[in-house]
């Protein structure tokens, strides 16, 4: 059974000029412990889809299922990480990570048992008492990931989490996330517009096309793990990249006059 599944999701926004199909009948399933990437040009509805899966946005039609059970809103079974830094600035790093456990009513000792190993793993132990403003962009995203993991979620939903990082930090963060994923074996849905990032990270890449936001293709990434940075230079990587790029560009060529969307 899939860890998380989106079934026949449609999302229609009413705007002044009419109705916009942000998502049009998208169905996808992500198996347990699977790393799935969702790529597409901006405006293809990939972030909206992720928010629907997170329960933050109610779709016009269709449903989301976690372990086969429908979801009715956000929940601790799905941890989310966004592109913008969403750490609580008034809480120290440790308190940020312990936000979920604290809501659950865990005692201080219990919370420490959760946050301690996570901070260690993220290389943030020394910064446990720092405020988010004292951290670099890459560190902030590591805290955000630790905070999501602290709730022991079934699924991690990540919306371009490394989009705001510079290229070098980004490469480090990707490798780091792979390690985390291999250790925790969480199901991950990872939204990005960076095709290389999607191939490097994913077991599967879902390619979406915009206006209306549709699922174009599902591509299995057969590059063996653990993937090193060198994998990016291999012919197979290049092939996959071309294949995905063509799927996206092909669509763009068909609809050149469409305006830019979010």
């Amino acid at each position: 059974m899939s860890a998380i599944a989106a079934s026949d999701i449609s999302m229609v926004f009413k705007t002044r000029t009419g109705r916009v199909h942000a998502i049009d009948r998208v169905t996808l399933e992500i198996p347990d412990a699977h790393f799935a990437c969702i790529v597409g040009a901006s405006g293809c509805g990939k972030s909206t889809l992720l928010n629907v899966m997170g329960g933050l946005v109610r779709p016009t039609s269709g449903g989301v299922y976690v372990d086969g059970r429908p979801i009715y809103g956000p929940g601790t079974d799905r941890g989310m990480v966004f592109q913008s830094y969403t750490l609580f600035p008034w809480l120290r790093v440790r308190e940020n990570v312990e936000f979920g456990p604290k809501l659950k009513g865990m005692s201080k000792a219990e919370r420490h048992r959760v946050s301690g190993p996570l901070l260690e793993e993220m290389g943030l132990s020394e910064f446990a008492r720092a405020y988010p403003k004292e951290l670099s962009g890459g560190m902030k995203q590591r805290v955000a990931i630790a905070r999501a993991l602290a709730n022991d979620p079934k699924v991690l939903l990540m919306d371009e989490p490394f989009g705001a990082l510079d290229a070098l930090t980004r490469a480090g963060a990707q490798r780091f996330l792979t390690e985390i994923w291999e250790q925790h074996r969480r199901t991950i849905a990872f939204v990005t517009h960076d095709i290389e990032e999607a191939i490097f990270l994913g077991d599967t890449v879902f390619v979406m096309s915009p206006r209306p936001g549709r699922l174009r293709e599902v591509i299995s990434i057969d590059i063996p793990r653990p993937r090193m940075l060198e994998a990016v230079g291999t012919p197979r990587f290049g092939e996959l990249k071309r294949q995905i790029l063509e799927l996206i560009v092909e669509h763009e060529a068909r609809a050149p006059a469409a305006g830019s969307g979010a």
Partner: protein
Amino acid sequence: MSVALGFACFGVIIGIWALLSYTGLALSLGFANLHNPFFLPSPGTVTKTLYDMFAHEGFAHDVWASTRRIMIGFLLSTAIGIPLGIAIGSFRVVQAFFEPFIAAVRYMPASAFIPLLIIWFGIYEKEKVAVIFIGVFFPLTLLIADVSANIPKELLNIAYTLGASRWQVFWRVLLPASWPGVLDNMRIGIGWAWTYLIVAELVAASTGIGHVILSASRFLRTDEIIAGIITIGILGLLTDALFRWLYWMLFPYSERVAR
């Protein structure tokens, strides 16, 4: 460096003032009035007057009377304005109910209420507090509503995904996220409080800085008028410093507070 520049600006203004008073500059420029001590007393005279006012004329009593009115009026405005503003900014229903009314009253100048408030409350403390309240409460409430309404949605959403209920999001995210903005607007609001208080004291009062200024005007005591105005300025600076200090103490995590 920036502190030095700030002081330099005061220096320049006082320097020009001194030049006008102590040299023939104003005369040669054709502004004879500016050389006339009844029109513009010298910095030395004003300083001496200010000292005399505090030492012999019980000015401290008036300063305290004004400060007390500010504190009461301002506390009252914030005690109601902050919770109401946050509620307006956070809950649709509350916003729909209050915002149009408050937005309308906000455009009615508080000074226009003074005659009415004198009839209702007399010319003593209650009236002063009421003027401050009307002048501060309405705009402050709307500013604070703005603060709460503009808390990044993603910050609230992430709390929901971490398992927070609506109330928990309100108490643990929306409120703490609002406090720095609330304090910022309090700092702005207390400036309005001074403006409206002095207006109220100029219209009718038996104590207070505004009252002293008005009495001085009747006797052509330009030096006392200027001393009074400067006193308000100094009090304003002190209040501002107090709010800055509070911000620094309360929000060490803010990007604006240097490490």
